[in-house]
């Protein structure tokens, strides 16, 4: 394969990732997709999940994202994430407390209103963060 592609993951707070990668995989709304150099211009919405990429040394990296948008160009992938954390930066304690809080809230009010949807989204975020963080420890 000819060369690397630049991967950029930005959130409203900061630039989380900006480096060269061999391949980038992201959780698109309609399914996971992979991007190599020379990809045709592509724009999609992302769902909650993890972005995986192989860095220049061939190591696999994972970054948690809670939805957003991705734009692929032949030489660059930009991911506009609502929030993003590298696997090693995930705060497991915080995710655990968030999970508990969301669970409690869901038990208390089993209705379909805004709070409910919000609590469910929080639950999913927390679960995914924990899964990703713990996958490393094995």
């Amino acid at each position, binding site marked *: 394969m000819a060369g690397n592609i630049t991967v*950029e993951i*930005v*959130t*409203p*707070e*900061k*630039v989380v990732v900006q480096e060269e990668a061999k391949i980038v995989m992201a959780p*698109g*709304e*309609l399914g996971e997709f992979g991007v190599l150099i020379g990809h*045709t*211009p*592509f*724009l*999609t*919405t992302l769902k909650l999940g993890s972005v995986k990429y192989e860095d220049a040394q061939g190591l696999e990296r994972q970054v948690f994202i809670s939805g957003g*948008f991705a*734009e692929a*160009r032949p030489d660059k992938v*930009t991911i*506009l994430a*609502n929030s993003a954390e590298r696997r090693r930066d995930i705060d497991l304690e915080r995710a655990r407390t968030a999970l508990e809080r969301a669970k409690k809230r869901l038990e208390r009010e089993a209705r379909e209103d805004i709070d409910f949807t919000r609590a469910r989204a929080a639950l999913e975020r927390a679960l995914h963060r924990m899964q990703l963080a713990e996958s490393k420890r094995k």
Partner: protein
Amino acid sequence: MAQLKDVQLKISAVKKTKQITKAMNMVAASKLRGAQNDMEGFRPYAGKFAEVLGNLAGKAGEDASPLLIPREEIKNINIVLCTSDRGLCGGFNSNLINKAARFAKDCAEKGIDVSLTNFGKKGRDWARKAGYTIASEHLGIIGSKFGFNIASISGGTLIEEFLTGTYDEVYVVYSEFRSVARQVPVLKQILPIPPIEQEEEIEEKDTIYMPEHICEPSADEVLGQMLPRNVYVQLYSAMLETSTSEHAARMSAMDNATKACNDMLENLTLIYNKARQAAITADLMDIVGGAEALKG
């Protein structure tokens, strides 16, 4: 002698004031650095977001989202007014409030109902006094550290109220941070979303051959999801700019105050020295006069 004591008291009072203004100046300077960092951190996201949106705007249909369609009859508007919570920052708040007040008055004269969403206590106090409806108020945000979710929560509420017809237009008044010495109050429409400017360089890029983006699920769908977020992005950036401006305004206001204190101290010291000299001369005259009298 009484005058001497008065001047001395005044000097010590001014010295104390100077200590405070100097401390506030330094605190504002360090907070300004923090706020500027937050702004820098947001810039890549905002820039990229605008770029992608600009790319997309040309492709999606005009009626891709109800957020884009201007209403024919404007009856109710909401102004999101960003000010600081605290004073002592020169004309910062009054400039912002004037901007909002002028606009609100113009609208009211046309028979449009104006309500306000207040970020910051100063603006809230004004709105209360002027008798405008306050849709919601958020204190303790501008000037401190805040996250994107604050913008997305109140942005979400505004969008919902726009869609249900509570408001026909939504504006934001905030302070644009041009430089440490210059902050400009700005009025911007955020809903319905004004026509998005398409990227200018598209023509040039085409010469290198850049095929059109493939969109998933579809251009309209992606745009439909990006537009609300665009509102949050605008709000967040307005809040960040106002925060940064507040600290910058306070810093220069306090710098001026410290300088004024220095001037006053100089004047007062001069007066004090003169008075002291006069007192000494008067005492000497007394003594000499007394000695002369004894001789006689």
